[in-house]
């Protein structure tokens, strides 16, 4: 049993070194930086368990992708090549850019609130899964915001689409919701 203690010690050291504390409010620092390993009021889930959960829920879970979306500048010359990459998402996900901003504008906040209400049928017990990219704070913020709206089964998937694709789970190409 000595190896167990040793493993625990190594794990503890690893955690102490790697740990990023949860900020008290929303994170407004750099979007792409190390994220915490927890989310108060929510559950953290990883790719294989998420796939199993989605299977159990028979498409009952609401999946929200909060990655940012490229915006074509209005004055981009027609000679420019505007070719945003196809956006891969977990099948069934709704893509709400901006929902995970640290201080989201009021119009985005209310759009997100209404969109979640519609998708869950106003059921605060429905499973809500929020993700974006790996090492990306938008999903942490987006999940925290969903919790603040009163949802009781919020899962934060910190591995993001990269973590999902890394284990060869399927994706679909989606377009963003028309946020205000």
């Amino acid at each position, binding site marked *: 049993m000595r190896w167990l203690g040793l493993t625990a010690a190594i794990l503890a050291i690893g955690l102490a070194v790697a740990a990023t504390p949860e900020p008290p409010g929303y994170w407004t620092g*750099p*979007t*792409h930086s190390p994220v915490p390993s927890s989310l108060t009021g929510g559950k953290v889930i990883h790719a294989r368990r998420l796939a199993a959960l989605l299977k159990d829920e028979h498409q009952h879970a609401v999946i929200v992708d909060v990655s*940012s979306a*490229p*915006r*074509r*500048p*209005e*004055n*981009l*010359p027609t000679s*420019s*090549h*505007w*070719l*945003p*990459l196809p956006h891969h998402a977990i099948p069934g996900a709704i893509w709400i850019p901006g929902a995970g*901003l640290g*201080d*989201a*504008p009021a119009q985005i906040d209310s759009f997100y609130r209404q969109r979640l209400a519609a998708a869950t049928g106003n059921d605060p017990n429905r499973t809500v899964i929020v993700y974006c*990219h790996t090492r990306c704070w938008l999903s942490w913020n987006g999940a925290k915001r969903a919790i603040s709206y009163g949802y009781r089964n919020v899962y934060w998937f910190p591995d993001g689409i990269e973590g999902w*694709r*890394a284990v*060869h789970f399927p994706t679909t190409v989606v377009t963003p919701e028309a946020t205000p």
Partner: protein
Amino acid sequence: MGLMRTPARAVALACLAMVTLPVITHADEEDADRGARWKQLQESIFPHRQIQDGGGIISVDAPPRALDAALVPVELQISGNKSVKAIYLIIDDNPAPLAAHFVFGPKADPHDLKLRVRVNQYTNIHAIAETADGQLYASTKFVKAAGGCSAPAGSDDAAALQDIGRMKLRLLSTFNAGKPVQAQLMIRHPNFNGMQMNQITRYYTPARFIRSIDATYNGGQIFHMDADISLSTDPVITFGFVPHEKGQMKVVAQDSSNTTFNHSFDVPGV
């Protein structure tokens, strides 16, 4: 050859291979994605044209892991004796991938070109040389950087616009009439790309970016550059030119609001 000299190294390499094995299969998938993307870009930017391997003709360098995705330094170098008339810089996975297109004039020395760009996500960067006979040659570099397109340009949009268009020029090597010299051009311009949120108003700052730069020396063209939203804030371009005598470099930049910025510099200056 020396890599496998010691058994310990061989073991270490074997372990490394085992650890990275699942990642390699994922990487294969990513490689396929990147290949498809590059094919799409080739068809869109260079329709019906062949692109050959740029080995020995053009090379592109950038830090493999950039410190700041909004300010990624890229260096393009031309070698060999083919005459290069234009260079394209393509950031594959940016939404507007063609970051810059340089066309060289008679006063240019195109061997070494540096600029700073925004990188939206992990991506290949392609540098394409177009030779005088119309052939295209490509080289590539993978860069790990993310978020460069939405990174705020600064805390204050008004301040960023205040001395817009101010320019500086610096010679990086000794002036020697008839010999190529490297120069660094700095232009004050926020180069807003329309994806940056103002930190106070929480609205997107409208795009305003440099669309073209013309540099001439004593009336002869050094380069013409077309660009859009991938150039970094306060563009810095390092380029070569061949001055046959003391004289004046004239730089004309035009932005997307159709504002023109002019500056003339005495060369070698004081």
